């Protein structure tokens, strides 16, 4: 039995904000299934006593003195924006009302 159905892939794609086309959905369902079969071996590796490791280094918070240093200008920050207006990123409507 497949681990992941076409509908499940569609649901996850929506969570990941990717509008997949029909043929992509069908292809991906089989491929993700194959990959999950190959990686499921990790479930046999460790018992409950083994701690999880998220990172090779011990992460500690890093601070610096609160001193003003040069930073990007508004123009430089907006230089790659698809659209901008009045020194701001211009984005499509976010609240669903008529524009």
């Amino acid at each position, binding site marked *: 039995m497949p681990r992941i159905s076409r509908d499940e892939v569609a649901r996850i794609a929506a969570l990941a904000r*990717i509008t997949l086309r029909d043929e992509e959905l069908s292809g991906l369902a089989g491929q993700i299934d194959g990959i999950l079969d190959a990686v499921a071996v990790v479930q046999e590796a460790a018992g409950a006593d083994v701690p999880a490791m998220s990172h090779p280094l011990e992460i500690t918070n890093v601070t610096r003195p609160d001193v003003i240093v040069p930073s990007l200008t508004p123009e430089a920050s907006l230089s790659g924006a*698809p659209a901008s207006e009045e020194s701001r990123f211009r984005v499509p409507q976010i609240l669903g009302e008529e524009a």
Partner: protein
Amino acid sequence: MSDLIKKSASELAALIAKKEVSSREVTQAHLDQISKTDSLIHAFLYVDTDGALAQAELADKNHDARKSPLHGVPLALKDVLAQKGIPTTCGSKILEGWRPPYDATVVTKLKDAAVVILGKTNMDEFAMGSSTENSAYGPTRNPWDTDRIPGGSGGGSAAALAAFQAPLSIGTDTGGSIRQPAAVTGTVGVKPTYGGVSRYGLVAFSSSLDQAGPCARTVLDTALLHQVIAGHDPKDATSINAPVPDVVAAAERADVKGMKIGVVKELTGAGYEKGVADRFAESLAILESQGAEIIEVSCPNFRFALGAYYLIAPSEASSNLARFDAMRYGLRIGDDGTKSAEEVMSLTRDAGFGDEVKRRIILGTYALSAGYYDAFYGSAQKVRTLITRDFAAAYSKVDVLVSPTTPTVAFKIGEKSNDPVAMYLSDVATIPVNLAGVASMSLPAGLSEGLPVGFQIIAPAMKDDRLYLVGGALERELNSKWNGPLTHQVPDLVVR
């Protein structure tokens, strides 16, 4: 072919220092080779001809200040690092045309060292792949056999070296993207200790695994570049605040006498081609003859590494790549005034990301989702602990570990592109290194049926110098047998 381009970076730096040749002449020779050969190889996504010549002229003007041992030497930069004003795509359509407003720390260090940046090299999209076939801009070809892949994700950075388009390049390595391309192109590549080189300005794929590193055709050149780019950076919270191991001195000393070298039992045997196993065995014999003690060690949990990697890396990627949202930079599709931000975002991500990137985002989102987290991502994180323990146990017995870098030589373009799991196996020997954050080098061990084989060395964290002691010693013996670096045997490129 200009004989300048066949020289090593250290030879070029010496000629420039003695004013026997200018940085401009050296840079022009490499630009000429790029324009002559890159229609075939496609190592570069962008060649910054004017910018490179301007940097070279500046290096010549500042000749007497000699900013570094690589003053005036040209380099190819992987297109995953931000360079101010220069297109940076990560091999993706979603970033087509984006010009970063700032430099990555690696780029700042290169500029401060008067290293000349020739352009940006091709790669699998967002560094996800082992062949560069996942680049949205078409594959790079292997100079040894142009029907074959140059490895990935840093295939452009490796192919540029083997095609004599640049004597130095920068790669990044999340699961093997520096070392596997080095292995299949007969070049040298180092993944430094995690935290050894700043990630500031490196477009993130899997933040707990990504590491930028040096690539070249010789061990010494690799060390010289390593020294330039390594060191603590306050802009990267995971940058290690400790002195850089003296990799250049180690490369020059190149001595393994009395060293204990561990052969990882799990990274040999079944699955490794005969030619790969033979070159590996010959390299071991050389190291033994030079006074090293060869010991077999077992790392039993390495067999879980590939599975853990293909859960951890996609999980982190699914989060990191959320920033490509069509709002602040890059592609925006469908913004016709009738669609919401969320619809525009979703359409843009479908149009802008390629198949492998989508595959990994979906896989990662699944592995992190409620109900599956413990079984997949959680289990993978435990494997990471087990692998780190395997390394610690091994290093209580030996100074470095070794293995073949890849199970096979370069495969044909198209051979594995429809089988993601087969493609993932290319990285079976390189992945454990990234999961534990230790340091590793691949260097040429010879040819199998005319194609390069890589020898992998793995050193404990912050003992990167040991890579160069071992790599330097092995290279000295092999290069004297070959009458120069292996890349001198690359067939002449026939550009149609």
